[in-house]
C-alpha cells in the first residue's frame, strides 16, 4: 500500500488503464508535454506517445465531440476539460449528445468515454475557476457523474469510469488534489460507480455529502464525537445515479439527515438527496432534512474573505448538525 495524493491516484489509474488497454487515449489542452496544468498526465507523452496523448486546440466542444465520435467507433477516450468552469462549452456534446446516443440509436451505438475535469474551489480560483458543475450533469439521464474525495476512491472509480460502456463525467476536486493523502493499494482494483460509502459510522444523525465537503464533514463529526455524539458520514462518491439504498438505510437508522455540498443550494445534488429521503424515509425522520450548501451566488469570489464566506466549512457544518440534533 502506497500513500499518495488524489492527483497521484488519478495519474496512476490512467497510466494503468492505458497500459492495459490500447483503446484508451487522452485528449485535451496541454495534456502532452505540459502534462496537464495539474500534472495529471505528467510523463504520459513520453510513455504513450503523442498519438495517445493528444494536445488539442483550445476548443472544448471539439474535444468532447471528437471524443464522442471516437468512443462510438470503439475507442475509450479520456477527455480532459482543464477546469470544471469550462464544462459549459461541452454541455451540448455531453448532455445533448453523449448522454443519449445509446438511447437514441436504440442500443446500436454507445459511448465509452470519460470527461475528466478538476472542479470546485477553496483554492482562490475566483468566479471562473471554482465552479461545482456536478448538478447540471447529474440531472441528465444517460450520464454517470462521479465525484471521488479520497485517493483510494479516485483511483478505483476512475478505472471503473474508463471501463464503463457509458459516458462518465468524472469530477476531481482541485483542493483535494494535493491536500488529501491516503492509502492506495498497489495494482488493479475497481470501485463500482453508483455505490456510496460510509466514511464514518454513527447513530445520532446522517450527513450525506461528497467531494471536498466530505473532509469538512468528517471534521465536524469528529468535533461532535468528542462530545460523545456519533454522526454517520455517507460519501455519495457517485452523484448520479445516487445510491438510494445506502442513504436511506443510514437515515432509517439515525432518523436525522443533513445534506452537505459546496455547490450552491438550489437544485444542487442535495435537493435530490433531500427529496429521496423525504419521500422514502418519511416515517423514520425525527427532524426535517436540512441542507448546508454554498449560497445561491454564481460561484465563490476571488478575495479570500469572500471565498471563506461562501465555503461550507467544518464550522458551518457543525453548527447545522447541532441545529439538527436539537430539533
Amino acid at each position: 500500500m502506497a500513500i499518495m495524493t488524489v492527483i497521484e491516484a488519478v495519474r496512476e489509474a490512467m497510466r494503468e488503464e492505458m497500459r492495459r488497454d490500447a483503446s484508451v487515449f487522452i485528449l485535451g489542452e496541454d495534456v502532452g508535454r505540459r502534462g496537464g496544468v495539474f500534472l495529471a498526465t505528467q510523463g504520459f507523452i513520453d510513455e504513450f506517445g503523442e498519438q495517445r496523448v493528444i494536445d488539442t486546440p483550445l476548443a472544448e466542444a471539439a474535444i468532447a465531440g471528437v471524443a464522442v465520435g471516437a468512443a462510438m467507433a470503439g475507442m475509450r477516450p479520456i477527455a480532459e476539460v482543464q477546469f470544471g468552469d469550462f464544462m459549459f462549452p461541452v454541455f451540448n456534446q455531453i448532455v445533448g449528445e453523449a448522454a443519449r446516443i445509446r438511447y437514441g440509436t436504440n442500443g446500436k451505438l454507445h459511448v465509452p468515454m470519460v470527461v475528466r475535469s478538476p472542479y470546485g474551489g477553496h483554492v482562490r480560483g475566483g468566479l471562473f475557476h471554482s465552479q461545482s458543475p456536478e448538478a447540471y450533469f447529474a440531472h441528465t439521464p444517460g450520464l454517470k457523474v462521479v465525484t471521488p474525495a479520497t485517493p483510494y476512491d479516485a483511483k478505483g472509480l476512475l478505472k471503473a469510469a474508463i471501463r464503463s460502456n457509458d459516458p462518465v463525467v468524472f469530477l476531481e476536486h482541485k483542493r483535494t488534489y494535493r491536500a488529501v493523502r491516503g492509502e492506495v493499494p498497489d495494482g488493479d482494483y475497481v470501485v463500482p460507480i453508483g455505490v456510496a460509502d460510509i466514511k464514518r459510522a454513527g447513530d445520532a444523525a446522517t450527513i450525506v455529502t461528497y467531494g471536498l465537503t466530505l473532509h469538512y464533514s468528517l471534521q465536524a463529526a469528529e468535533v461532535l464525537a468528542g462530545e460523545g455524539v456519533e454522526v454517520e458520514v455517507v460519501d455519495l462518491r457517485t452523484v448520479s445515479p445516487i445510491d438510494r439504498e445506502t442513504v436511506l438505510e443510514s437515515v432509517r437508522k439515525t432518523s436525522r439527515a443533513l445534506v452537505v455540498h459546496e455547490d450552491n443550494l438550489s437544485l444542487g445534488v442535495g435537493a435530490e438527496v433531500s427529496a429521496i429521503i423525504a419521500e422514502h424515509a418519511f416515517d423514520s425522520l425525527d427532524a426535517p432534512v436540512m441542507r448546508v450548501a454554498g449560497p445561491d451566488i454564481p460561484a465563490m469570489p476571488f478575495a479570500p474573505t469572500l471565498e471563506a464566506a461562501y465555503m461550507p466549512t467544518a464550522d458551518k457544518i457543525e453548527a447545522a448538525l447541532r441545529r439538527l440534533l436539537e430539533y
Partner: protein
Amino acid sequence: MAVDNASIMTQTMNDLPSGLNAEDLVDIYANMVLIRTLDERIWAMNRQGKAAIVASSQGHEAAQLASVWALRHHAKDYFCFTYYRDLAVTVSQGLTPTEALLGFLAKEGEPMSGARQFPQHGAIPDRKVINISNVVATHISHAVGWALAAKMRGEPTVVAAYMGDGATSQGEVHEAMNFASVMKLPVVFIVENNKYAISVPQHRQMNVTEVSSRAVGYGMPGVTVDGTDVVASYAACAEAVERAARGEGPSLVELDVERYLPHTSDDDDSVYRAKEEIDEARKRDPLAKLKALLQSAGLMTDERDAELRESARREVDAATDAAEAAPFPPDDDVLERVFEEVG
C-alpha cells in the same frame, strides 16, 4: 455561387472522371428515380396525416449519390455521418424503402432508432450510416472523432460529414474542421448548399458567396461545384476522398444544390420564397439533368425511364403497405437502453 449550369449538357461519356463509368451513371439514375418516388410518397403521407414530419431530399439527390459513389470507388472503407435531408445517402447505402417508411410512421422495427427518433435519425452501422442528433452540426465533430479512431487503429476508413449551408455557421463546425486539419484526419466535409437555412437566405447567413472560402483558413482544400451535376459532384468528392485516403487530411466540398420543397412538412415557404425562384431552380432538377445526359449518350430512353419509374412505384407501394401494417413499439420499451444492462 460559381457554377456552370450549361456545361452539363455538353458533357459526354468521354469526359467522365476516373473511377466513374457509364454503368455507374445508369445505376445512380435508377437510385434517383427510386429515391425521388419514395420522397414524394413520404411527403404525400405527411399530407394525409400519416407521417408526422418530413424533410425532403428533392433537389439534393445528385450531390448525395455522387458523394456515395465517390466514397465507394475511392476509399477502401468509408462511413457517412448524415443529416436529416440525406435520404439519398441512407437509401443508396441500403436502408430499404420499407425501413425508411417504418421511420416516417414511427413503427416497431424501425432500424435506426427503434422509432425513438425523428425519421432518418439514429444509426445503421452495418450500412455505414450514422445520424445521431437533430441538433444541427453536432455530428461534425463526431465524424472527426470517428476518423481519428480509424487513423489511430490504422484502418483505411474515409469519413464523410454531411451538412447544410446553415449548419456551417455553427461554432462546432469551425472547431471540428480545424481539429481535423491539425490532425490530418481522413474526413470529407460535404456542404449541401441549398442557399437556405429554413427561411434564412444565404446572404443573411454569411457574407461570402462560397462556403468553401473557409477552407483556406484551416489549411485544407475547398471547392464549390454544381451539386445538381452528378459528374461534377463526383469528381470533386473523389478528389477529396483520395486526399483523405492518402493520409493528407480533410477537404471541404461544397455542392450547390436546390431545395424544391419547404424546409420540412411543418414549414410554409410561400411567406419567404418567391414561386419564380423555385420554378427557376426546377430547371436544374438533378433527375432531368442526368436523364438528359444518359439520353445524349444513348444510355436511356423514355421507355426505360418509364419502366424504372413504374418499378419504383411498385416498390414504394409495397413498402407503404408493409409500414402501415406494422405496429407501434410497445410502451414498456420506453425505459430500455438508457445505460448498458449489466449482469
